[in-house]
């Protein structure tokens, strides 16, 4: 073991690095976590994930008096998610996820993944990190891992808060849906986690896109906004049925497939296809990001 630990140090001297410098030790993940944690936007985004379920809860409390007449007109089989939201903590958490999945989570993930490289570039600190030197691949890898971790954290915080707040207010009941039998709480938690997992996979596309843009521009806003815009564009194209089978290739086509997890047994076919699309897109975007960033001149 000791021999293994000796080697990098020896090599770094041989490669001409300063004493104590090792490529693999630069920009430790924890240092990047701290770098991002101190930023206001990180704190605000994560704070909002806590706040949102509370806001929804308050809204439900206000609306509970006059909701008698609007419960029968929910469109489609899943309009009932709203009606079921107050039936228990699990359903409430699911509702919070459902309303956030289309846009809020996209923005949050785009923020976490589109911002880190572009904002360092706009501050001018990127060139000093690269001059340390933090190898470019390592810099990107650490930034990406931390950005993904924060994105996942946001997703989990939203779910956990929704679950907690919903359970405190509405109690611990089975996960209900009108299309299938209510799912017992224990299994319901697993289903909820599976939904979170699937959303995380789908959002990898946003993460990939935002990260790619982040390496291409010095404007953090451009990277975040660009990713969100392209996501919306994909959603719009997906609405146009005239496009036929081309839609299947859109990254947003399977973004609602997690609803299949609510039936018994879960319908995972669309989830699998969605995951395939997401993995392909994310891999493509990330590869492009690395390919570009390791070759370009840093002009910031």
């Amino acid at each position: 073991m000791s021999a293994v630990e000796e080697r990098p140090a020896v090599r770094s001297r041989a490669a001409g690095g300063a004493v104590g410098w090792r490529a693999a030790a630069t920009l430790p993940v924890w240092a990047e976590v701290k770098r991002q944690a101190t930023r206001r936007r990180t704190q605000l985004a994560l704070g909002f994930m806590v706040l949102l379920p509370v806001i929804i809860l308050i809204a439900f409390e206000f609306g509970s008096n006059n909701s008698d007449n609007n419960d029968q007109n929910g469109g489609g089989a899943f309009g009932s998610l709203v009606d079921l939201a107050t039936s228990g903590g699990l359903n409430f958490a699911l509702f919070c996820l459902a309303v956030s999945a289309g846009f809020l989570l996209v923005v949050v993930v785009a923020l976490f993944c589109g911002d880190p490289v572009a904002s360092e570039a706009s501050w001018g600190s990127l060139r000093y990190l690269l001059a340390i030197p933090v190898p470019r691949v390592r810099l990107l890898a650490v930034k990406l891992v931390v950005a993904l971790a924060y994105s996942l954290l946001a997703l989990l915080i939203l779910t956990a808060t929704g679950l907690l707040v919903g359970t405190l207010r509405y109690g611990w009941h089975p996960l209900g849906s009108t299309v299938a039998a209510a799912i017992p709480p224990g299994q319901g938690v697993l289903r909820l986690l599976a939904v979170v997992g699937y959303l995380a996979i789908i959002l990898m596309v946003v993460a990939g896109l935002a990260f790619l843009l982040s390496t291409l521009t010095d404007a953090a806003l451009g990277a975040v906004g660009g990713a969100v815009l392209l996501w919306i564009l994909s959603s719009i194209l997906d609405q146009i049925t005239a496009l036929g089978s081309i839609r299947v290739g859109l990254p947003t086509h399977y973004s609602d497939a997690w609803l299949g997890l609510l039936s018994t047994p879960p319908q995972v076919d669309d989830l699998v296809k969605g995951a395939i699309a997401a993995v392909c897109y994310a891999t493509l975007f990330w590869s492009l990001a690395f390919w570009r960033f390791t070759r370009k001149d840093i002009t910031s």
Partner: protein
Amino acid sequence: MSLPGRLRKAVTRRRLLAGSVVLVLVAGLVGWAVWPDTPGWKATDQRITVRTGPAGDQPVELDTRFYLPRDRSGRVPAVLLAHGFGGTKDSVASDAESLADRGYAVLTWTAQGFGRSGGQIHLDSPDYEVRDAQRLLDWLAARPEVRLDAPGDPRVGVVGGSYGGGLALLLAGQDPRVDAIVPSITWNDFTNVFLPQSAGTTATGVFKKGWAGLFFGNGAATGQSALGSTLGAGGDAGAGGGAGATDPACGRFAADVCQAYLQLATTGVPDAATSAVLRKSSPATVLDKIKAPTLLIQGEVDTLFPLSEADANARGIAANGTPVRVAWFTGGHDGGAGPKTDQDRVKYLTLQWLDHYVKGDGAAPANSFTYSRVAGFSALDRGLVTNGYSTDAYPGLTGTGSTQVAIAGPAQPIANPPNGNPGALSSLPGSGGRLSELLGGVAGDVPGQFATFDSTPVTGAIEVAGAPTVRLRAASPTGEATLFVKLYDVDQSGAETLSAGLVAPVRLTGLPADIGKASEVTVTLPAIVRRIDAGHTVRVVVAASDQAFLTPARPAVYTVQAGSAITLPTVVGTPIANPQTIWRYVLAGLVLAIVLGLAVVLLVRRRLRRRRHDEVIEEYADTPLVVRDLRKAYGDGFVAVEEISFTVERGQVVGLLGPNGAGKTTTLRVLMGLTMPSGGDALVFGHKLGPGAPVLSRIGALVEGPGFLPHLSGLDNLRSYWRATGRPEADAHFEEALEIAGLGDSIHRKTRKYSHGMRQRLAIAQAMLGLPELLVLDEPTDGLDPPQIAEMRRVLRRYATDGRAVLVSSHLLAEVEQTCTHAVVVNKGRIVASGPVDEIVGDSPSVLLDVSDVPAASKVLEGLGVRSVTPDGPSGLIVDMNGTPRAEVVASLVRAGVDVDRVVPRRRLEDAFLALVGDNSRGSGDR
């Protein structure tokens, strides 16, 4: 930069090429996707006149279409494809095409009484429609393309749904030439269909007025219909061929059929003639003659022809020893074609059946029974999702097992509404395909008209597949009662679901007025496929009305009491492998491939990296910096650095001097590994510089101004930076750095609040963290006040002792002169002068004079034989002395009456620099 310039920069040849390739690819893919296929078949429309009727002497013209596969070798087997009620030959066009694609000659036709065919509707009468089909078999036998079993006997299968399915059964029962049949969603006995009786008595059933009316209305109009549409009917409205003037009450129905309907619909009880008509059109009469292997496909969501009809057909045909296979799918006259998975399964079974029994391809289909159960809704298109199951043999409607569920409830009085209005709603005949509504519980019972008998929540899930039975007692003051028994699945929240909208109509006669004296009858509910989940309750409802059925017109109050238990037949099937499962392997393979690819890329990179960075040029191993023939040209053709070479030795403070845009910053960017040089290289201690070169860790740098995280304090910024180096904190020498920064308590404030000078000092301190062996500073005194500048000069000079070196860039001559030991002057990307500052600075032959009268002074100086005189501002002159002593110049001027304010000897560096700046102070661009 101007807009066109930017555009030119963006649209380089490479981008243009990449863009074109992508465009061509996308265009190609779209083109490929929308390119029309050439069909593998050829269709011919033809009007065939057949002789029909009981005596076979009534000519009727049939509108037919004959499909032939394009590439066929020899004679091909044929399929007779019949359409549903209200449809035409066009209704089955897509099925016909897919069969033709599979190598069958397919004959479709519009049955008589419909579309453009002549004749009248005789409800698949053996004397008319069935005889028509026999003549079509004759026609097929005469075709040279069709394979024959014997002269006049074509190799033929008969396929059809609903009305067409009935025809297939009746034809197979009447004509032994039929080799196989695939009737789907069809009937066994019209009497049972239109007068269903679910109780074990001999009393006449309850008239199914909803469906009967729809059936009749459809036939009368022969337009597009719900019945036809469930089978994909299009059909042109009644441009009837030979119908002639018709009775408006009967439309194109034959008189006997019309009369039967009118009689039945009026009374609800069939007379002898009506019974005969219904009987004649029922396959039940010919089942014992069917020798053609039969695949029966029946819908689970079908209130017109429920599963029991196919069950009766299956039992009747199997009794002859004829091969029979049964399949159920989630669909039917109420449920439509069902989800894609079910359609695929049915299609597969059909082809497998025809291929074996008609074409003679493939092994004999297994005897297994397949069915499907609703699993939920698709999240994407809101359609139904079903799971397919199979069992080894057809279990009938009684299941392979059964579960008794206790139900409880007192005897309850229920009211029969006059004329059935208001009535309970259980299904919507003809709504075709709106299955989700049926599942979502459109069912509504009318208060006062129904009795409920509930179970306790079931402890385990029950997989019901078959016809449940329950015992029932009823009392009626009129001695008769028409009742509707339904089975609801009630979930925890109380929502009740009537599976497929199916109800069991019961007509009991001879009832006592007192429930105590009533005897029990067994009621067999319609067969369903449903999973009743654990925790749900089973509810049996006995209602007095249903809008789909004819109920007694007179009001009455019945008393009903259900038995103590309901028997639920169960089947535990093996899930049919879902072809979509393949995608899971695709996903797994994809992830594996990505992981492997990543590993390979990382390994290759690591190896390349080691090879690249381990190279040392021994010659320069101890030289802090050697720049050799450095050149940088950008993609748009702009050359920032033409060719620059210089060396920084230990102990030197080297100044890189040049006007703005001379290429200084670009050079420093290369030294930081930010920019890749287009030519030449830079070596630090013999190691080649490049992005991420380890030797960069021995350089401290400040290039193009400070870069700090605005939300962190100065100290936190330095700490954050040092953490990113991954080196031990003790190596950082924070104390020294902070001293150099000299920010005092401001070091704890956020850097966004710093002044420019503070940031600059902090940046220099950051560059010095870890005391790197080579310090590279770009305009270090920018923003500093004079005392700080003086202090900075001392710091830099002191820094270069100890074997370290400093490279400073500046556009200020004085700066370099006072700070550096060596200087490199660059302009337009080239080195103009370089060497020790003292050497460069040494006296130059020129002098700067400030005089009171410039023209006079110029005249005097020219007389002295100096080389040149250049005016410099309103009172200044730059004079190239050409060896003339300065004292003599001053003396001559004073003698000539010119006042001399100042005499400043100029140095070489300044000359060199001025010469560059003088003619080039603008337009050099940003480098």
